[in-house]
């Protein structure tokens, strides 16, 4: 298992290198540079800035510098922050993003699986319709619409929760952003769980369990849940990488620190170092999460394990 994991990680290095190289050169093709803006700087100042960041060197030389630094574990400077380099910014944002992402991830699984199971057990009955409709709201409405509505209702009208900010990081500050992040995933997880559960419940071994006289609750918990989770788990990999890379919308509406805004802002600002840094970070994270999914698969399904 360990050697398998190690080989998997090793095989991603060439992929990473190709991505970094492509990203490096494609970025430079984009019109506009990091120092273009409402105020054009005089040529002398631009020259100083270019020299400061090595942007006056030939592109291939800049690329070699970058890869050299990267091999030493240095992600380089960020043009939009003088006081924090790319690696420092990612390290600062990460704990916030992971706290939000993991909480949202857990919430999405709990709600999604519970609603999905109930839906399957009460297939085409009242609870299925009501829960299904409710969860659909979370899937259909985009987060930039849900977030302001929740802020208005719970932050201003009821005044139960803060409208935004991280505050001291206590639960009340997390509730709204976590719910906004978890809702669409909870919705999708519940749809997948429901479908899969219905299928499993019609299988022969469930019929056998029922025939042996095991109650419905035990049938689901002991026999049906584990096999029904297979498609859910394959969804969890992408969902986790989505949640753990943060959300631009959630961060900028709730005013939260985190890495979600880095990538898009950096791309818009032509902050080359930051774009590359986030791309590398995302790739490593996604590879890692996919590995975890594969391991979870092996644990859930003996057929996969013994292959």
């Amino acid at each position, binding site marked *: 298992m360990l050697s398998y994991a190690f080989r998997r990680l090793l095989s991603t290095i060439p992929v990473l290198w190709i991505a970094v190289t492509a990203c490096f050169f494609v970025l430079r093709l*984009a*019109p*506009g*540079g990091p*120092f*273009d*803006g*409402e*105020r*054009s*700087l*005089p*040529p*002398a*100042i631009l*020259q*100083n*800035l270019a*020299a*400061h*960041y090595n942007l006056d060197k030939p592109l291939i030389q800049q690329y070699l510098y970058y890869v050299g630094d990267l091999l030493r574990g240095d992600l380089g400077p960020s043009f*939009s*922050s*003088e*006081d*924090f380099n790319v690696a420092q*910014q990612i390290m*600062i*944002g990460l704990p*916030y993003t992971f706290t939000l992402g993991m909480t949202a991830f857990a919430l999405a699984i709990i709600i999604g699986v519970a609603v999905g199971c109930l839906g399957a057990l009460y297939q085409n009955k009242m609870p299925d319709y009501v829960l299904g409709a409710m969860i659909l709201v979370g899937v259909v409405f985009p987060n930039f619409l849900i*977030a*302001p509505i929740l*802020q*208005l209702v719970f*932050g*201003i009208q009821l*005044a139960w929760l*803060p*409208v*935004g*900010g*991280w505050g001291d990081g206590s639960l009340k500050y997390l509730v709204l952003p976590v719910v906004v992040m978890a809702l669409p995933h909870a919705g999708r997880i519940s749809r997948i769980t429901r479908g899969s559960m219905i299928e499993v419940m019609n299988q022969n071994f469930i019929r056998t369990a029922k025939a042996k006289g095991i109650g419905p609750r035990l049938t689901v918990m002991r026999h049906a849940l584990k096999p029904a989770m297979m498609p859910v788990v394959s969804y969890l990999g992408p969902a986790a990488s989505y949640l753990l890379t943060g959300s631009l919308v959630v*961060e*900028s*509406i*709730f*005013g*939260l*620190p*985190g890495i979600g*805004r880095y990538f898009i802002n950096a791309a*818009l*600002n*032509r902050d080359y170092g930051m774009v590359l840094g986030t791309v590398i970070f995302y790739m490593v994270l996604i590879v890692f999460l996919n590995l975890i999914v594969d391991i979870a698969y092996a644990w859930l399904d003996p057929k996969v394990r013994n292959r």
Partner: protein
Amino acid sequence: MYHFSKKFLATAMFGALLACSAHAATINIHNGGDPQSLDPQKLSGDWENRIAGDIFEGLVTEDAKVNPIPGQAESWTISDDGLVYTFKLRDGIKWSDGQPVTAGDFVFAFQRLMDPKAAADYAYLQYTIKNAEKINKGEIADASQLGVKAIDDKTLEITLENPTPYFINSLMHYTAYPVPKHLVEAKGADWVKIGTIVTNGPYKPVEWVPGSHVTTAKNDQYYGAANLKIDGAKFFVLEDQEAALKRYRAGEFDILTDFPTDQYEWMKKNLPGQAHVAPFSGLYYYVINSQTEPTKDKRVRQALSMAINREVIGPQILGTGELPAYSWVPPGTANYDEPSYVSWKDEPYKQKVEEAKKLLTEAGFGPSKPLTLQLKYNTNDNHKRIAVAIAAMWKPLGVNVELVNAETKVHYDQLQRGDVQVGRAGWLADYNDPDNFLNLLVTGVPMNYGRWSNAEYDKLIKDGNLEKDLKKRAELFKQAEKIALDDSAALPIYYYVSKNVVSPKISGFEDNVQDIHRTRWLSIKE
């Protein structure tokens, strides 16, 4: 010789004292984005300025209405030829670690600003200082040639290239803030980290969570610390203006430094007296290419300018009542009184359109040969609304407009390369002086996107900047402005307004044309 007395400061301080009799507390300010740095020589932008101006203080500082008042310097004298400024530093001024602030700290800071290796974005704002430009361009390697000298610890002498009437104003800018030489030399780039940084302003930074907020606390070493009514501020990062307004309504913010224009009517009704809309020294304008056809023809440029119904843009399209712009320099700019206006300013709109049609016909455009133009703007709802409206205003002239939008970086890249027929641009003054606007139309200046060039204009601006007599200088500038407007060098559209929302708990907030509101002049009632 001219001497700035302490009386001015005393009056200002006393005024502030009367205005703020509430007890101390902290204030929560919505500050848009994350600051680029806390290092005053590495900044550019408004978010940074709000923080930097609270934690550092230059030789000259601003009162609540952003008039220059003595800061770290208690007084100064100006030589008869207007070239040499001698500043006497205040007694007992200290950095927040208790070290004295000396003339040497200022010399160090100015040399650092001009060091080409430091690559300061805004170094050019202080090019008025002798040899500054040459040092910054690498033409002079010896930084001590800069016209900033410490006579002794308490006396600083600054020599200029030319007499510059706005020099005192430009010293309020953050590029002119001192930095602690002892710390920068010891720690290098890390001097600015929280926990290490020391400052000489009324406040000092104590916390920075990137993406969330910067917190400041009172600097007990500051000479005016006893008069501060507010103990510290939190500057919050929040890009979403709608969300910022909600947080304000929930009491999480005390001041919003911008708000969504479409909420203005609602705010007037529901938060009476809290939304502050005030004239701001900035100009929203359209660049027009004077080097390429068809806008090379002055008649075409003038026709397009005349047919813009400026009166409806502020009140109806934007909804925040921006004032129509018929001049290049916004009214209320210092050292200028009334700007020059376009000659057709007061004609009724119908007549303007008729004249515009005539001009276009003269230029050879008409139903048989319609004028087709590209109008470029950077992607933004308000820019789009205005572009659509102006395209509609040009339609009756027989002008077909193709609207092209691009993200900010791409848009300005196109403007700089001159790849534009008509394009949106804006200018916010760096310092309160007409030169800051008029310079945008001088031949060869990078911001002269329309590539308009007029030898007489260039000469008038140059002469004006060498003129010591402020009245004569203003006259020369006005002549130049008239030339630019008569030639429709660019199309001014409206003067910017500042948009703040201020909680009724706050007092001492004064609207001003530079939209600078230092925490030290504010107080808060709990």
